[in-house]
């Protein structure tokens, strides 16, 4: 096997391992019990899969055609930059939307904090008349009656 052949083999191997990684993360997304754990599979390992694959493609083009593709590198940077943020945003949204955790969850550290923040904000905004919670509206109605 020549040097070029070896490099191409390595490139293909990288892509294949990326594919294996993707399969693993797909299994993860199927098997994990709730959103919060699934997102681990959905973002972390699939990001790795993409990184490996794109790196493989980059090496392939570099050795095969002598073409150093900036677009592929930019793609790697982009995915590396955005995938964690996307995961973070989804899970934040899920937590605020009160998606249930699995029964095996041991601790929810944010439980008190979020509750407190919400209460504070509601209290503040009701004072300024900005928004009003549904319970408050009911109360006011009763008082008027």
């Amino acid at each position, binding site marked *: 096997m020549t040097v070029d052949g070896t490099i191409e083999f390595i490139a293909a191997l990288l892509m294949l391992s990326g594919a294996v990684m993707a399969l693993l993360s797909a299994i993860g997304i199927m098997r994990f019990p709730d959103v919060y754990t699934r997102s681990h599979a959905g973002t972390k390992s699939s990001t790795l899969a993409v990184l490996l694959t794109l790196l493989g493609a980059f090496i392939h083009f570099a050795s095969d055609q002598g073409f150093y593709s900036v677009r592929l590198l930019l793609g790697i940077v982009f995915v590396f930059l955005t995938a964690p943020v996307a995961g973070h945003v*989804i899970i934040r949204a899920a937590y605020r939307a009160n998606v249930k955790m699995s029964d095996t969850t041991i601790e929810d550290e944010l439980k008190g904090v979020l509750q407190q923040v919400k209460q504070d904000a509601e209290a503040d905004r009701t004072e300024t008349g900005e928004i009003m919670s549904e319970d408050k509206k009911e109360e006011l109605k009763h008082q008027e009656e």
Partner: protein
Amino acid sequence: MIEIMLTLALTLYGIAIAISVIRTIIGPSLPDRIVALDMIGVMLVSCIAIISVSYGTKAFLEVILILAILAFISTIAFSKYIERGTIIDSRRDD
């Protein structure tokens, strides 16, 4: 040899996407589905990289970036919708 490896990689990606589609369909909550959709988007990116390697053409490389951008924006939009009920706010609220 390399051909076989590329085909195998594509097949594995195909299986992974199929599994994610199942999760998109059954996923009990909305965030589940979005996690799966995001993953499909990211995997399609790598699929296109593999396809362009196996065709030996550079014409598809732009698609990689555009697809990644679209996946990111759609994920952000979805999660903002879940979190606040709106996608674009009219005023800055902090």
